[in-house]
């Protein structure tokens, strides 16, 4: 069974934020919510690298472990999804998530949290595939269309990889062998408890 993963080849990322924009547009993500973001480390210094980060769809996901109402589920593709009908907006997943993936609209009492929103790996949610309800709550279901997350498909420098974990790991390995360097598969150890050894 294919295990879906994200891999950001930080040596290729030019911080163009096309992935962020593509994501926002594809799912009509509202203001203030970023399912994906690009962080630049060592900005302006030698060794500067940009990394595009979103929900990594962890193995043994921390969000799912701490959710008080157990609204998360992991599909056979190992995509971590959640039900907005069950979510109570408590923020526990945000405390536990190593990647800062869960996002909340500030709609609750006293400006606190509304229902959590996060990257769905373009795989919708617990509503029927391609239904309007699914699109309104979770966004497009590209995976069911036989496509991959738009952020990765959109990437101008082919830095962001998505798809079968084994295949994208082999692609990354090939690249590192060819060019002779690589700053590593960001977040993989934390998310998948393994990394790409080159």
């Amino acid at each position: 069974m294919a295990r879906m993963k994200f891999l950001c080849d930080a040596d290729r990322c030019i911080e163009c934020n096309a992935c962020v924009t593509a994501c926002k547009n594809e799912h009509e993500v509202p203001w203030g919510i970023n399912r994906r973001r690009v962080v630049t480390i060592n900005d302006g210094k030698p060794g500067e690298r940009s990394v595009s980060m979103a929900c990594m769809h962890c193995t043994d996901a921390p969000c799912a472990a701490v959710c008080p109402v157990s609204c998360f589920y992991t599909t056979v593709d190992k995509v971590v999804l959640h039900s907005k009908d069950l979510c109570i907006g408590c923020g526990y997943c945000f405390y536990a998530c190593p990647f800062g993936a869960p996002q909340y609209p500030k709609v609750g009492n006293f400006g606190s949290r509304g229902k959590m929103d996060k990257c769905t790996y373009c795989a919708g949610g617990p509503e029927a595939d391609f239904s309007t309800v699914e699109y309104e709550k979770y966004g497009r279901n590209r995976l069911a269309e036989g496509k991959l997350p738009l952020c990765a498909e959109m990437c101008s420098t082919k830095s962001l990889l998505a798809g079968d974990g084994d295949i994208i790991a082999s692609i990354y390995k090939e690249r590192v062998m060819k060019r002779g360097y690589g700053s590593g598969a960001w977040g993989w150890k934390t998310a998948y408890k393994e990394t790409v050894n080159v």
Partner: protein
Amino acid sequence: MNAWVKSLVAAAAFAVVASMPAQAQNYNNFNPTKESVKEEQLLNALKGDAHVAGRISIPDQKAANLIQPQGQQWRAFHEQRLPLIGGAAILGMLVALILFYLVRGRIRIENGFSGITITRFATLDRFAHWLTAGCFIVLALSGLNLSFGRMLILPYFGPESFATLTAWGKLAHNYLAFPFMLGLALMFVLWVKDNIPNHIDLEWMKQGGGLFSKGHHPPAKRFNAGQKVVFWIVMCGGIVMSLSGWFLLFPYLAGIADLQLYTTIHAVLAVAFVAAMLAHAYIGSVGMEGAFDAMGNGEVDINWAREHHSLWVEEEQAKARASAGSKAVPAE
């Protein structure tokens, strides 16, 4: 003039071209990984007390944290340690209370009910107490549900009903926090003057409050040392709960590391608080004959008061005599 400029440009161009091979040489030798940021190095350098952070171009600057490994510690605490702490505190207290009841039984009024009562708590006192207590019960149940409901009651309710219940619980928890804080403030103002520890409390403590020996009651004023302990537990606990809860009510005021700390403090203190209040509720109702009246209708039996608060009864009676005396003077 024009020709002069042209020759200058040409000279400059020549200079650039001449220097190019050297530059190209530089690029060939340039090793982009020499100072490349490797995630592992960053994580190792962290030693668990910072985040891998950088610069971000979206408005939410908090999103500049790329990886925060502390999330895993928070998860471990929430998943493994909190159920242990909570279970030990609350179940431990329940077991201790049951044992105490079996050994000591209900603490009776030695001389029985006299039928004569004395006012122990006025309406305002009782309002402050029950405002706080009522909020506390809902806050405690909704809080415990948030931490342990998934483990204990989700299997019986089903995900939809449980989520609805928990959502209402969260709303109640958010809103009742404010009357709870008001109750705390009110109780503090009303009772702090009678809750300053003094030498009588030392004696009371030495004798174990007479809890463990029948027919023995150390003297006490309005509040005995045990009640003073409850008062200060409620005040200190309540303040820390309120402060930590305040930041959780307004989650955009604090950073994620602070919020993790506040939830941890809030949770650990909450289970201890619940355990302490179980003991308080026990001794105020089932555990002691005549005690509930104090907060029930405010009138306690004079025999109960003489046994448990001997010095307070004397003071009250002295006051009553004095006011009766002073009233009597103009009448003469």
